[in-house]
């Protein structure tokens, strides 16, 4: 079944050709083709997958055997990569200038596909590294410090994973998932097991942006081509999430047996869930305090990933299914948000909130897309965001884990808060004079945004579509969905269509009352009730900057603890240590070198005598 290989390597091939030919028209065409081919194949393979349940393919290469497989789970994740990847590449048509970006963007997409479809640990690791390098080079082009911080953290994660893989390989002698699973189950000691879990936690935590390891995300997401960030945060963070599922698949059962459960959630799962909860809160609060539009959405992306981690941490099949559902909806609305950010930056060239404002009239289409994205991310009922959040709430709270329930609930409000902050600063209020002639989104970006907006609405109203696929992963009827519009969990029911219908009814009633009243007179934005002094264009009164000052004061104590500073200090300390050691060890004096030789002779003598 070498279609799997085509799916994986098509983007890279497209990227390399695009970099090689580097002609304005052809390069974009190749790039988009590179992203579209895998998606087409995935859709084609769906029927075969339905029939046989798993399509696998293995090749012998460089002395190792690499196996690839497409199961329902990996099909779902691959589809996420496909859809968001395609949207992002279409958007890149307008925002990226040279072949360099096409090559590395599509290389990271190949990495993501490879991670999802590989069925052995070594293949998984290789594509993981490929993805890291691809995304790193995209960031390195814009800023060195952000790039290096991202690279060091993700390479530390990758090497932690490699150490764990090596330890398992030393035990099982092969990399394929089935052998690994039963080798870990039967032969692994308790200490090694804990070490391997810790290493995997670090490795996938870094890529998913879990709380203590999330510091790279804001810089990396903002210091790159914004339409690539849609793929970066939409798809690449999902590889981290997929990794957590891998932990469950490969060593989960043994961890459950070895370390027992804490109130129906496995102990190791509870660690993931708790860190996920912290990620939600930290990500959300920091997002609200940001001044740069890209950073706000970077932190919001981290906070949303926190939800998925909480869902996975709880460990029941319902919560994992809810987590995957949220992974899908997060990929959609986060991808959409970053495309919106890309359009804004592409049109206005501004990135901080202070210089923006009042774009709603000038960019109506983008604002409509933003409105859809806001509803979905904040979790307003008829949207996909709400369904997945609702599933996660139900799953977490029904496992009577009160603290996690509280964290998740708090998270939903934070989402609400920083979105309003974004809306107020960018769309409404007084418009600075230099933004008066901004045009609406260019065609490629508009198409990309549309591609991501539609599923947001569809999956909200008709969650049955998604739930039918997800149930196949777990085999049983985890979430029963009698009709396409309805979900029934036994202790909670949701009906997308009904909510939409009654919302429209409500709106109609309000509209009727509205139009009964007298006609309205359009008044410009500057003519507002100012208790006395009229506001003119020059004197632009707005609190776009430092919108949440009171929140910052309330959280002043917590904001002092910053892991970013901690890692930076460690980096600086390592470099100083290296400097001192180098000048001390290689001090240029041949006599001290002779002393080193004598020292080794002494060691040999001590050893021997």
């Amino acid at each position: 079944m070498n279609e799997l290989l085509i799916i994986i390597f098509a983007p890279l091939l497209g990227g390399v050709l695009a970099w090689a030919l580097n002609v304005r028209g052809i390069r974009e065409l190749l790039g988009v083709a590179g992203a579209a081919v895998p998606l087409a194949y995935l859709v084609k393979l769906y029927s075969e997958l339905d029939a046989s349940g798993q399509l696998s393919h293995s090749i012998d290469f460089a002395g190792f055997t690499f196996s690839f497989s497409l199961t329902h789970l990996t099909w779902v994740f691959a589809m996420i990569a496909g859809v968001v990847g395609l949207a992002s590449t279409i958007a890149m048509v307008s925002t990226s200038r040279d072949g360099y970006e096409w090559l590395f963007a599509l290389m990271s997409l190949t990495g993501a596909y490879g991670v999802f479809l590989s069925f052995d640990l070594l293949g998984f690791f290789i594509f993981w590294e490929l993805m890291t390098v691809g995304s790193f080079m995209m960031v390195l082009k814009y800023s060195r410090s952000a790039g290096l911080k991202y690279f060091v953290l993700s390479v530390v994660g990758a090497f932690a994973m490699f150490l764990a893989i090596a330890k398992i390989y030393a035990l099982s002698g092969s990399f394929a998932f089935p052998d690994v699973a039963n080798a870990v189950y039967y032969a692994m000691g308790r200490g090694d097991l804990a070490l391997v879990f810790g290493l995997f936690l670090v490795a996938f935590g870094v890529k998913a942006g879990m709380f203590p390891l999330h510091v790279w995300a804001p810089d990396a997401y903002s210091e790159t081509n914004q339409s690539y960030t849609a793929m970066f945060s939409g798809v690449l963070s999902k590889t981290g999430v997929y990794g957590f599922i891998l932990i469950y698949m490969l060593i989960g059962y043994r961890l459950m047996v070895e370390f027992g459960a804490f109130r129906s959630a496995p102990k190791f799962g509870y660690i993931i869930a708790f860190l996920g909860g912290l990620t939600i809160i930290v990500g959300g609060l920091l997002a609200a305090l940001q001044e740069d539009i890209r950073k706000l959405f970077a932190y919001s992306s981290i906070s949303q990933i926190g939800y998925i981690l909480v869902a996975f941490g709880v460990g029941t099949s319902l919560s994992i299914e809810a987590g995957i559902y949220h992974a899908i909806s997060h990929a959609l609305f986060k991808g959409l948000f970053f495309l919106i950010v890309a359009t804004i930056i592409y049109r206005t060239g501004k990135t901080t909130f202070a210089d923006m404002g009042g774009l709603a009239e000038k960019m109506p289409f983008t604002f409509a897309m933003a409105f859809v994205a806001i509803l979905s991310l904040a979790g307003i009922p008829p949207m996909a965001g709400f369904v997945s959040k609702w599933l996660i709430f139900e799953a977490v709270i029904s496992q009577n884990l009160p603290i996690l329930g509280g964290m998740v609930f708090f998270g939903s409000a934070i989402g609400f808060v920083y979105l309003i902050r974004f809306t107020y600063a960018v769309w409404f209020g007084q418009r600075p004079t230099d933004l008066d002639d901004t045009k609406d989104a260019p065609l490629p970006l508009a198409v990309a945004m549309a591609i991501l907006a539609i599923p947001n609405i569809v999956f909200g109203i008709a969650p049955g579509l998604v739930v039918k696929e997800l149930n196949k992963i777990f085999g049983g009827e985890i979430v029963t969905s009698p009709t396409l519009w309805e979900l029934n969990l036994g202790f909670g029911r949701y009906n997308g269509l009904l909510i939409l219908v009654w919302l429209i009814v409500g709106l109609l009633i309000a509209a009727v009352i509205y139009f009964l009243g007298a006609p309205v007179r359009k008044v410009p934005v500057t003519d507002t009730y100012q208790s006395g002094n009229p506001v003119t264009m020059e004197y632009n009164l707005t609190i776009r900057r430092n919108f949440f000052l009171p929140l910052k004061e309330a959280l002043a104590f917590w904001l002092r603890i910053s892991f970013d500073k901690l890692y930076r200090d460690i980096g600086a300390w390592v470099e100083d240590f290296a400097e001192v050691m180098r000048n001390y060890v290689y001090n240029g004096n041949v006599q001290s070198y002779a002393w080193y030789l004598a020292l080794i002779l002494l060691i040999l003598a001590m050893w021997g005598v």
Partner: protein
Amino acid sequence: MVSLLKRSLAIISILVIGYWLAQGLAGVPFGEDKMLVGHYYLQHVKEQTGAVNAVTAVVVNYRGLDTLGEVTVLFIASTGVAALLWRKKRERTAKVGGSPVLTVGTKFLVPFVMLFGAYIFIHGHLTPGGGFPGGATIATAFLLLYMAFTIYEIPHKAFEKVEGLAGMGYVLVGLIGLAIGGYFLFDWIWQDWQWGVDNIGRLFSGGFIPIIYTIIGIKVGTELSGIVDNMLKEEVRE
């Protein structure tokens, strides 16, 4: 104060290393017959190589490759010294010549020293010493000339050519051995042509050992004097 500490530390570490080496050497008692391959050489040296002096047989014939490497090392030394001390224009800066005793003595002695050197490397396979001591004595002859006369210089361009030729000669001998006997550095004179098989112990015996030793003698002589010449000269400051 620091140097005292350093010295005492050095002494202590030296003693420990010494003790360790001594322990190692205790396992190889002095004076005992520890030979294994050595006996084979002693028994077969006469009929296999025709040399009376077993050491020269081992040096040139049995372990010929070592000596080839050996000659190369010396060649590298002389080239290296020439390369490092190379200046555009160089000349001798000695001011004071040798005293009359030295100048007259050198004029008289140099030919005999050279003859004695030649004797050593020609009789390498019979008497102790071989190409290297012979070459060294020749070099001392040139050194005598340098010390006696302030203006004397060896024709170093010619000497370098001789060095090259001698080296090539040695390798050619080896290659001829390869061509005739099938093995590189094969003693075809003794093994194939069986020359001098009957008169072991006299001059014309020992296969290609005398040939190689003469080549080495000339080469070592020229190289060492080349090194002396390089080290003596100073750069000419314009």
